[in-house]
């Protein structure tokens, strides 16, 4: 009996690993013909911006604009979410009373429970109008819109992991600093942030992972235009442009392609690219978190 249970538990543990490899294998397999055929130019794939996958006469598969879309939305989202998330975590763990703390944690968990399509819906309607009104933009489905939505979606992750990191700072450090007469603000930047920095960095990285991988909400909120929101004229970055992300492209196009066609396979290569990005981000986060434990 003991043996059986042990076996089952082991299978459960191993299956997680198997699934990850299986998924990677599947994605790779579906894109394999294109990848190994001499025609596919990886360089051109990454660094050209013409994405005309369905063109009859001259299909072109350059994902530069899609990468720029993902990058711009993610970076702007983090610019919003990181200060808010860290601020909220510091407030929750250090400054508020225990009752308010519990209330805020529940609210933030609720935020995490909102399905992404609902966020997308908010982006499509409320945010869309708001951005048109506030900025006089012709359309509100933009980098800014997607970034705000993504920021709201990644704040819960950032807050909860940062809060854990702050909680892990030994109380004796706080007492030492209080005993020497730190103000609250000095406590935060002289003791808490340096002591918890690895955990906070991990929180930010996981937030980035969340933002890069998010699909439905950005698909609905960013306007779905293959376009690079950067150019040579100031301010160089145009948050009121519409863009399209890597994830949104796969979600929108995969259903319309014939299985095994070139377009279909390219989308899987895009999947591999995405997988590699999020894998790298999460791995870094993991290593950073490990770094905390070893100290």
């Amino acid at each position, binding site marked *: 009996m003991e043996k059986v249970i042990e076996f089952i538990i082991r299978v459960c543990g191993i299956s997680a690993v198997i699934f990850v490899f299986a998924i990677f294998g599947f994605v790779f397999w579906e894109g394999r013909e294109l990848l190994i055929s001499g025609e596919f130019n990886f360089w051109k794939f990454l660094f050209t911006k013409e994405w005309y996958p369905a063109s009859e006469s001259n299909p072109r598969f350059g994902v530069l604009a899609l990468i720029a879309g993902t990058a711009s939305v993610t970076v702007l989202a983090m610019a919003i979410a990181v200060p808010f998330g860290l601020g909220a975590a510091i407030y929750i763990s250090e400054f508020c009373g225990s009752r308010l703390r519990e209330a805020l944690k529940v609210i933030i968990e609720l935020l995490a429970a909102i399905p992404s399509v609902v966020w997308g819906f908010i982006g499509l309607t409320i945010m869309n109008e708001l951005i048109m009104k506030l900025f006089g933009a012709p359309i509100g489905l933009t980098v800014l819109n997607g970034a705000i939505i993504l920021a709201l979606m990644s704040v819960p992750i950032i807050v909860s992991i940062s809060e854990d990191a702050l909680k892990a700072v030994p109380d004796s450090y706080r007492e030492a600093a209080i*005993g*020497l007469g730190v103000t609250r603000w000095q406590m935060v930047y002289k003791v808490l942030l340096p002591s918890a920095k690895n955990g906070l960095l991990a929180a930010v990285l996981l937030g980035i992972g969340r933002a890069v991988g998010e699909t439905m909400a950005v698909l609905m909120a960013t306007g779905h235009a293959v376009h690079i929101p950067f150019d040579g004229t100031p301010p160089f970055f145009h948050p009121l442009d519409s863009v399209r992300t890597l994830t949104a492209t796969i979600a929108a196009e995969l259903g319309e392609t014939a299985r095994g066609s070139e377009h279909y396979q390219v989308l899987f290569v895009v999947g591999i690219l995405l997988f590699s990005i999020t894998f790298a981000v999460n791995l870094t986060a993991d290593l950073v978190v490990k770094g905390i434990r070893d100290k």
Partner: protein
Amino acid sequence: MSEKAESLCVTIRDFSLWYGDFQALQNVSLDIRDGIITSLIGPSGCGKTTLLRSLNRVNERYGNVTTSGDIHILGKNILDADVSLPELRKSVGIVFQRPNPLPISIYENIVFGLRIHSERRALGKSQLDEAVETALREVRLWDDLKDKLKERATSLQLEQQQKLCIARLLPLKPKVILMDEPCSALDVDGTRAVEELMAGMAGEYTILIVTHNMAQARRVSQECIFMLLGEIVEHDRTEQIFISPKNQKTIEYIEGRYG
């Protein structure tokens, strides 16, 4: 009378303290003389730590604390609403039960107090270096540590850590130093070293030490306070307390009948 008042450092009048509904200190009144070591003894849970921490108000970090009464330190009521806590803690330093250096270098631990209490521009490197050397010499760590000031303070031996925790108070020139069982995490040698250090510091600083170890109270302190259930039972010269205590409860405690 006026002569006596001059030599007092801390005067506590009718001080009571509650954690929520629980009264941990009851109408404490005390006069603590300037420049000597006073020990605070009593059974576990009688409020020694609470009283000690009230003197620089580090207790207030537990949000549920309320107080009544007066505590005057160097002529100022530290419970007044307009008292600056950083300033108070600068002149009333505290050493904790477990050594708790910050996880930064030895050097940075010692200048931490200076850094948080001064403008960045006001501190020159030579001034900081000098403060570090003076403080480490005063706690007799300079010869051991002068070549590894950049190392992490948390990697030192416990005894050195505790001495460092005393040293980091000194650049702020405190008047009073509170010590909560400073030797309870140390071995015999460490305890002796810290006691010698305290003896050397008395005079310049007014030291208040909580201890469970009655032999230690006898060795280091000139005056001794015995507490029970949040009240002061007896406060006298140390030899008086140990040789001919006045209160029956003190006698019982010293004879080891409880605690």
